[in-house]
């Protein structure tokens, strides 16, 4: 080696050696400098838009629930509560009145202290604008169901308005989807409705404080990286304990875990965090240092059966399929017993859940008997019908979900023992959800999950008018093609039954029918793992579609050694305002 090259190598080695310890100090300082005033949350998805009503996306809801308030929401105990309104209208308190044959008029009053973070009061002007935009076909609002049902908005004064709805349903006073947008900022941008989704201030001027009416406002956005929220100085509810909340997006869950361990994030959100198997492994390794909450929720993992298949059209075969698999064992072995086995699509945490429906505990003998009765006799290792055709089915599912792929492999093995040959087909979510399932191209079985809400009527998934076909442009989510007039009657009746005991009885019959007919094979209710530092108190996982951040003002940093401070009822009015940073695109 020449002297020059030797010198070059020596210089490089010295530089590398010197650089690492030198760089260590600022990071350590940064972590130490992070006081209890700031909380850094790690999630796996970045919101595509910040507009409350354009595109439905969990990451967006998770962030916006700290900065905006819906009119009504389900609380952590699954009870409907007012968030932005003073009182829930009911027929009993006279704020809800029947109109015509089917309609209802609902009177809401906006909270007197509700203000946008620029100091502008939240008024009925905002309600009128939000409904106008929501009903406009070109506004880009994704779920327009609520706006279609509103026949008229009648304004009483600056704070009180009446919604005239087309139908009186049991959940008539739940207007969770009504998320106000500020008229004083958004109306000028709505002059060209077709351009609104590109011009909305939520995406063009995201850090404008006037867009937010919750305890926090978005103060900085670094696209694809993180979102910074700071206190809303005009929030008059319970003051949040943290001055700043940072939501960091780290898509790779292994990297997210490493960030948690290295102090890059303080906690991992259960709603958009580590998968259950990774969380269980994390708990085993370092669980004692963290507060890990496993919360079963409304995500219903199940197998849709294509009832158009001659094999699966026979109810006995469907029941045998469920008797032949040991879901309890799968739950124990793969999920540490954290995912409750489902009996139907109704979650055990739901008030209308029925406890006495058939459970289909693992019973290979019963499965064999049912298959024999259905004409599928054991021939060698596989069951065959009278024509000699093997009992062979295809199970499709999504690629990329490790736990789902594992479950499908275990199911395949268990069914093989019952003489049922199952071929696995794994597809990218884009193909699976965009084509295979939505166009009912799966020949026999499709394993996936439904997201739901408390007491959500399964009209789109079980009503016979909701079977996707070319004729109805593939609309509806009744992918099994399930048709049962009694089920249709029950769904229609539940929707309009106001008397709770009667409605619970209808729900009971619906679940009995579901469990008997098995249009889908119930598997589990998915659990979310919330990984929290021990000092963080007040985080209450909900298990439903409203994430825990909707109650961010109750979160507190409270090391066990510290005395418990009394919660502050009002925001400090003289709090120093931090100037909003310009959002980076």
């Amino acid at each position: 080696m020449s002297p020059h090259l030797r010198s070059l190598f020596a210089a490089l080695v010295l530089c590398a050696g010197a650089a690492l310890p030198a760089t260590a100090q600022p990071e350590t300082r940064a972590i130490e400098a992070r006081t209890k005033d700031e909380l850094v949350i790690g999630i796996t998805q970045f919101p595509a838009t910040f507009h409350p009503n354009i595109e439905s996306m969990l990451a967006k809801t998770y962030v916006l629930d700290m900065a905006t308030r819906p009119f009504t929401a389900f609380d952590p105990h699954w009870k409907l509560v007012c968030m932005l309104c003073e009182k829930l209208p009911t027929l009993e308190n006279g704020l809800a009145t029947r109109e015509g044959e089917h309609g209802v008029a609902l009177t809401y009053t906006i909270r007197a202290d509700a203000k946008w973070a620029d100091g502008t009061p939240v008024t009925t002007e905002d309600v009128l604008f939000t409904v106008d935009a929501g009903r406009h076909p070109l506004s880009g609002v994704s779920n327009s169901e609520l706006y279609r049902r509103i026949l008229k908005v009648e304004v009483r004064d600056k704070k009180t308005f009446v919604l005239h709805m087309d139908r009186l349903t049991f959940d008539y006073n739940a207007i969770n989807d009504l998320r106000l947008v500020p008229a004083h900022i958004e109306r000028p941008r709505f002059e060209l409705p077709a351009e609104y989704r590109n011009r909305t201030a939520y995406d063009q001027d995201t850090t404008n404080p006037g867009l937010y009416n919750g305890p926090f406002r978005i103060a900085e956005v670094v696209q694809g990286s993180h979102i910074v929220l700071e206190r809303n100085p005009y929030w008059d509810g319970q003051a949040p304990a943290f001055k700043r909340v940072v939501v960091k997006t780290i898509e790779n869950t292994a990297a997210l875990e490493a960030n948690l361990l290295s102090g890059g994030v303080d906690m991992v959100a259960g709603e958009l965090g580590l998968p259950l198997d990774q969380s269980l492994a994390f708990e085993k390794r370092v669980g004692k240092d963290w507060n890990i909450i496993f919360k079963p929720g409304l995500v219903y993992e199940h197998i849709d059966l294509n009832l158009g298949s001659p094999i699966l059209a026979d109810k006995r075969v469907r029941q045998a399929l469920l008797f032949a698999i040991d879901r309890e064992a799968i739950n124990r072995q793969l999920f540490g017993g954290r995912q409750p086995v489902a009996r139907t699509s109704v979650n055990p945490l739901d008030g209308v859940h029925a406890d006495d429906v058939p459970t289909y505990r693992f019973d290979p003998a019963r499965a064999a008997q049912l298959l024999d009765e259905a004409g599928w006799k054991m021939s060698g290792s596989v069951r065959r019908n009278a024509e000699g055709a093997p009992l062979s089915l295809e199970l499709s599912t999504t690629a990329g979900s490790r736990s789902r792929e594992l479950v499908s492999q275990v199911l395949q093995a268990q069914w093989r023992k019952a003489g049922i040959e199952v071929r696995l087909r794994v597809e990218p979510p884009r193909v699976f959800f965009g084509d295979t399932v939505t166009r009912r191209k799966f020949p026999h079985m499709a394993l996936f999950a439904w997201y739901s809400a408390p007491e959500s009527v399964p009209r789109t998934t079980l009503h016979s008018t909701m079977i996707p076909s070319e004729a109805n442009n593939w609309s509806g989510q009744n992918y099994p093609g399930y048709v049962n007039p009694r089920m249709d009657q029950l769904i229609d009746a539940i929707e309009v039954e106001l008397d709770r005991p009667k409605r619970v009885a209808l729900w009971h019959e619906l679940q009995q029918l579901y469990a008997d007919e098995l249009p889908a094979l119930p598997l589990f209710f998915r659990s979310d793992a919330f990984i929290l530092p021990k000092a963080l108190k007040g985080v209450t996982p909900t298990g439903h579609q409203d994430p825990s951040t909707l109650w961010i003002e109750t979160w507190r940093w409270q090391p066990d050694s510290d005395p418990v401070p009394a919660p502050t009822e009002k925001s400090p009015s003289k709090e120093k305002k931090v100037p909003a940073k310009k959002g980076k695109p």
Partner: protein
Amino acid sequence: MIRHVTSRGLQSLAVLAVMSFVVYGLMGLMPGDPIDLMIASDPHLSATDALRLKALYGLDRPWTERYLAWLLQVLQGELGYSRLYARPVLDALLPALGNTALLMLTALALALTVAVPVGIVASLRPGSVFDHAVNLVAFASVSLPTFWLGLMLIVVFAVSLGWLPASGIEDVGGDGGLAERLRHMALPVATLALAGMGQYVRHMRAAMIGEAHHDYVRTARAKGCSPARIVLRHQFRNALIPVTTILALELGGLFSGALITETVFAWPGMGRLIFEAVMGNDFNLALSGLLLATAMTLLGSILADLAYAALDRRVSYR
């Protein structure tokens, strides 16, 4: 020379036009669209909503029709709006492009700074202990999956030692200064540099060994040139030609990003942006990103031609 460059430029434009058609067609032919996915994840989205949204985003028209509309728009200098990011395409593209260029160029510079001298030294004594060691490390570098390497670096330097941040481009609430940026760049740059170093070492070594057997090297030795002069002034210059070809082809990669590394280190660059745009049917954004990467590869190829002429006087273009 000018004629050659003009001709290559025109060819590149034709390639870009074909590429845009092929990419648009492939994306258009992918099963499902974002609205289908939205329906599948939200049972409460009605058929009316789905039809309305498809019409709004133009997804109800054949892809060829949409392609022609897009082409017309681009020819007028308008790249349009990104559907995924709800902002003009350039506003979504430029920050990611800057982040990626910074990451990739630094990693390339670091990889070359180490690989070129190591490759040269290894070529001086083929079969020596040092050469074997370099080959071993180079093979390991080529073979190691970047996601694994990245995670290992995070575990060691961020989790165990706590020296460096595990992800992101800057500290939240930090000053955004050079030192902060460098600390955040350290691990992703090291991952990319370590992963890329192996191939440059091997190419440099092979090219240098190949040049060592040429007559001009023997002549130089016979004339009494010092070994260092032969290696650095004669062999090295000629050995740069194949390495230049590889570097030229890397130019596109510099601007299309490194999806896996960017994902592991939560680095908001072009790799993640293009991937999300393609999967989310954001035609405007995906096309702009992919065509930019293609254009850079083609530009790299033209620059390589010019570099050949500069390195080897026997090469000339007419």
